[in-house]
């Protein structure tokens, strides 16, 4: 059955603060690349017909027809795969934790999360001309302990996300300090 919640283990009173995917520019680049790939066979066929006599052979025409069919099946399937990679890779900030849902490939999906109070450091980086122009970049989140760092990859407005996260972490730690849970931190 399809998941009815954004991620498995979502608590009933857990409020979703922000849901993020990669910046639209990343998707646009993929769409543009596949658009070029769709036009490519027509351009190639045009060149071959104009400059060679290859298509006068029945065998070449048949092989080209079958190749074209396979090519478009592949292209549309790979495009849908790329779309799924974009769409199913999500980062969620909730009132309780940060969740990373990543579709690695066809057979691998990784869901990781950690509580807000475990966050020790949040940094944003925007590198390059296009990321600066379109306001996208990475947010690195480091936690206490040996757990690996989380990276929100190529998200929109990383500086704002960093500010939101820092505010949330301070708020959560404040609450836990009042309750005496985080006395040593």
């Amino acid at each position, binding site marked *: 059955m*399809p*998941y*009815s919640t*954004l991620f498995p283990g979502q608590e009933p009173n857990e409020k979703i603060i922000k849901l993020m995917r990669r910046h639209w520019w990343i998707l646009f680049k993929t769409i543009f690349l596949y658009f070029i790939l769709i036009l490519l066979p027509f351009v190639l066929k045009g060149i071959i017909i104009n400059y060679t006599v290859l298509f006068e052979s*029945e*065998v070449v025409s*048949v*092989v080209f*027809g*079958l190749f074209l*069919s*396979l090519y*478009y*099946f*592949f292209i*549309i*399937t790979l495009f*849908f*795969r790329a*779309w*799924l990679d974009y*769409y*199913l890779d999500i980062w969620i900030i909730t009132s309780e934790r940060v969740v990373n849902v990543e*579709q690695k490939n*066809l*057979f691998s*999906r990784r869901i990781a999360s950690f509580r807000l109070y475990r966050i020790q450091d949040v940094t944003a980086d925007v590198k390059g001309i296009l990321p600066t122009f379109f306001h996208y970049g990475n947010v690195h989140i480091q936690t206490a302990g040996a757990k690996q760092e989380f990276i929100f990859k190529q998200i929109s407005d990383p500086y704002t996300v960093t500010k939101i996260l820092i505010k949330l972490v301070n708020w959560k730690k404040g609450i836990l300090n009042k309750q005496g849970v985080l006395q040593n931190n």
Partner: protein
Amino acid sequence: MELSLSIFLIIYLICLLFILIMTIFNLYHSWRFGMNNFTNFLMMSIYIVILFVIIFFSIKFISSVDWKSTFEIIIF
């Protein structure tokens, strides 16, 4: 040496089987993890419609070819 054109059709069908497996996994992922929302449903529909368009033109092309005809391979 003479070979039938149908050899290309067999290779084509083997490749198609691989694409079919990829398609099934794609649709499964989309349905299972796509959170049942409109965007996901729309993309799945567009994907399926385009697949059917390609299938339609492929069948049209395949049925127009005489697969019993042969071609000659020259071996040096």
